[in-house]
């Protein structure tokens, strides 16, 4: 008996080894194939590194912070985009999250419709949304905000609905058993239990939105991105670098703050 089991284990591990080698080979073949098809020479990319560094050091350094006052309103805009965009998506996302979860929405057709629409929203990148909306509404701040909301909504609603699925079940059974209505169960049972997940997912998407809102300007959708683009095109590399540094600092500070907030909330 024992021997049989060991033999079976042995046979299984041989199969597994074959599988692993096959997968490694396949991945390698795809990577090499991609290099050939794209006509990329890894070697020339590699020897270009010193040249790249030299160009960067000569043209970008030191950063020029002289005109920074001019950019402050744009930086504030960028931060506000992320804040307002995340805020609105968090509220709408909860609504769609409830519609998306089979624990809270019994109508399969409605779930399916919502899931279809949200997958579409989610799978179009935020920059593509912005570029598209610029054509429809013209250049402006509103466009960036709508693009952010659309992209974030898809992501948040899905994450929320997964958290809702984990909560629903036994704990809410008690409220159902004492005759509570559907909305009473959601308001008194689901939402209190959902708050930590709600905050966590929302903070996470706020970090993503900070980065996204910084580049939205590149397609004319408002915020600091437009000035990075403009400075680069005018060969004002020193000024562009100062903006990039400010952007990086903004993102880092955001991450620091959200991490602090997470620790405060249980």
């Amino acid at each position, binding site marked *: 008996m024992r021997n049989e089991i060991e033999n079976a284990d042995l046979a299984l591990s041989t199969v597994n080894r074959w599988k692993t080698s096959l997968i490694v080979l396949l991945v390698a073949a795809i990577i090499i194939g991609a290099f050939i098809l794209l006509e990329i020479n890894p070697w020339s990319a590699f020897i270009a590194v010193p040249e790249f560094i030299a160009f960067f050091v000569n043209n970008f350094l030191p950063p020029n912070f002289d005109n920074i006052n001019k950019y402050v309103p744009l930086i504030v805009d960028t931060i506000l985009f992320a804040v307002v965009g995340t805020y609105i998506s968090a509220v709408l996302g909860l609504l769609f999250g409830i519609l998306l979860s089979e624990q809270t929405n019994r109508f399969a057709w409605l779930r399916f419709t919502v899931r279809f629409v949200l997958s579409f929203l989610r799978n179009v990148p935020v920059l593509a949304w912005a570029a598209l909306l610029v054509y429809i509404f013209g250049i402006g701040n509103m466009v960036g905000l709508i693009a952010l909301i659309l992209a974030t909504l898809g992501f948040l609603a899905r994450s929320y609905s997964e958290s809702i699925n984990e909560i629903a079940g*036994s*704990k809410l*059974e*008690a*409220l*159902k*058993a*004492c*005759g*509570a*209505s559907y*909305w*009473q169960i959601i*308001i*008194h*049972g689901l939402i*209190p*239990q959902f*708050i*930590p997940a709600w905050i966590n997912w929302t903070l996470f998407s706020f970090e993503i939105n900070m980065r996204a809102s910084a580049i939205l300007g590149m397609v004319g959708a408002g915020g600091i991105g437009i000035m990075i683009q403009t400075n680069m095109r005018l060969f004002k590399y020193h000024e562009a670098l100062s903006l990039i540094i400010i952007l990086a600092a903004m993102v880092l500070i955001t991450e620091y703050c959200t991490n602090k907030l997470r620790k405060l909330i249980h």
Partner: protein
Amino acid sequence: MSSPLLSIRNLKKTYDKHKTYALNGIDIEFDAGEFVVVIGPSGAGKSTFIRCINRMIDSSAGEIVFDGVHMEQIKGRSLKMQRANIGMIFQHYNLIDRVNVIKNVLYGRLGKMSLFRSTLGLYSAEDKREAYDLLKKVGLEEHIYKRASALSGGQMQRVGICRAIVQQPKLLLADEPIASLDPQSANVVMDQIKEITTERNLTCIVNLHQVDFAKKYASRIVGIKDGLVVFDGKPTELTEDMIAHIYKGKEEQMTLASQQHQVELSDKEVSSYA
């Protein structure tokens, strides 16, 4: 002779489209004021049985007449109104653990409140007094503003009792209320269920798999095995042979003490591996 509070006829439940039956035709009646303990090994259908009464699970066939209403026929608002008249206590307490203790108890009133009033927290003064008095009775008056998650298992179950009682139910259901508790907390919880139901002349149906507890508290014992009632009588009528019959092949589940023993044994095994 008045009509029974709850009468169940030919109750059947299948989870797999009539291949196997969790409940296989149960006929039973309960009168007001009874303290019924349903015993049987896990998988016998106790949980399904008790949940069919307040329609947490929909039965496949049969009649459930509670307080003159056919439970199997109603839905929507009238179902909620009937549920509001049936209190329930759960094995895992099922408190909303991020909400404080007194609110958890007041949630028992949700079935009798409008969405508007409950959302704004407009519980009546009577409800609040009753919730507080009940918590005081079970010895939790110092914990009323704590989050439910800060309590011990035994304390959580006592909150669960208060939540069920504040409903002012006509029937109390308890599904394995002590299965997750240590023996001392189990005694406290069972004592309090017994005391409160006796005081209020409240009918109570408790699922337990521990025979020793059943004999100690029940005014009537019902034995379920393979989805059928195999014993129905006074605790004194429950013979050793009958117990052996009900638990055949699952003897280790009969008492809380022997379970504890099992746990200790398995702990020992674990430690000997370490």
